[in-house]
């Protein structure tokens, strides 16, 4: 069965979608990703959709689900590289992908993820201090 590869880079997971998505493929990715987050203790997920030319309501919902699930698993998700035509279409369709972090490209997405993760760790450090006092 066709599958979208999930690559590990340190504490981040990198998913590059290079094929046309269809429903089952997107659902498989959703299920796989949660498993891999658990297995690798990943703190961030970067999804590159620069090669995806069509996102309809189903696939948009899967992207939203992935972001929500990762959040529950204590990992941040950033979606990068959305094509302008896809963004226009998604908004007109009525699916503005609220709650999903986005960045223009992989480089900016990486920065955003690292920033998010380090801020989270800082916060944890502070609250730990608070507890010990």
């Amino acid at each position, binding site marked *: 069965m066709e599958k979208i590869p999930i690559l590990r880079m340190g504490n981040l997971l990198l998913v590059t979608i290079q094929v*046309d998505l*269809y*429903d*089952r493929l997107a659902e498989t990715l959703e299920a796989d990703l949660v498993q891999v987050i658990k297995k690798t203790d990943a703190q961030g997920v970067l999804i590159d959709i620069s090669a995806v*030319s*069509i*996102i*309809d*309501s*189903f696939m948009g*919902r899967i992207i939203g689900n992935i972001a929500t699930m990762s959040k529950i698993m204590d990992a941040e998700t950033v979606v990068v590289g959305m*094509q*302008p*035509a*896809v963004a*226009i*279409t998604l908004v*007109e*369709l*009525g*699916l503005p992908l609220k709650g999903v972090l986005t960045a223009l490209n992989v480089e900016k997405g990486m920065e955003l993820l690292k920033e998010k993760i380090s801020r989270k760790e800082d916060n944890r450090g502070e609250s730990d201090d608070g507890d010990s006092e």
Partner: protein
Amino acid sequence: MVILNKETMSIIREVDVIPFRNRLKEYAIKVGMSLVNQTKIITAASELARNMLKYANGGKATIEVLSKGRENGIRLIFHDEGPGIPDISLAMKDGYSTGKSMGLGLPGTKRLVSEFSIDSVIGKGTTVTVIKWKNG
């Protein structure tokens, strides 16, 4: 209105949607649609094809290349022999769904195309027809 070209494809399984989308893209390019309009009509087609698979176990999709005066466009006809839609005005409402989806399918699709019509008979089936003009 003149039909310049016509092609019908069966959509019975989920993977049938991909060749259909690719074929549609070829036609949209041939008509001279901008990338944004190509994306809109292919996304609309994707929604309607999914509806057909989900509610009627598939059906037939027809792509027609139209010419009206100086304007060119594409008409898509999705015909299934499923259970039909009991209340079309309800199905066209944003956020309404009998399935597990978000209910964006039909109203969202309507926003993406130039013309939209739906014809459904309970127990007989549903036909959804959309037109996207090249500059529409």
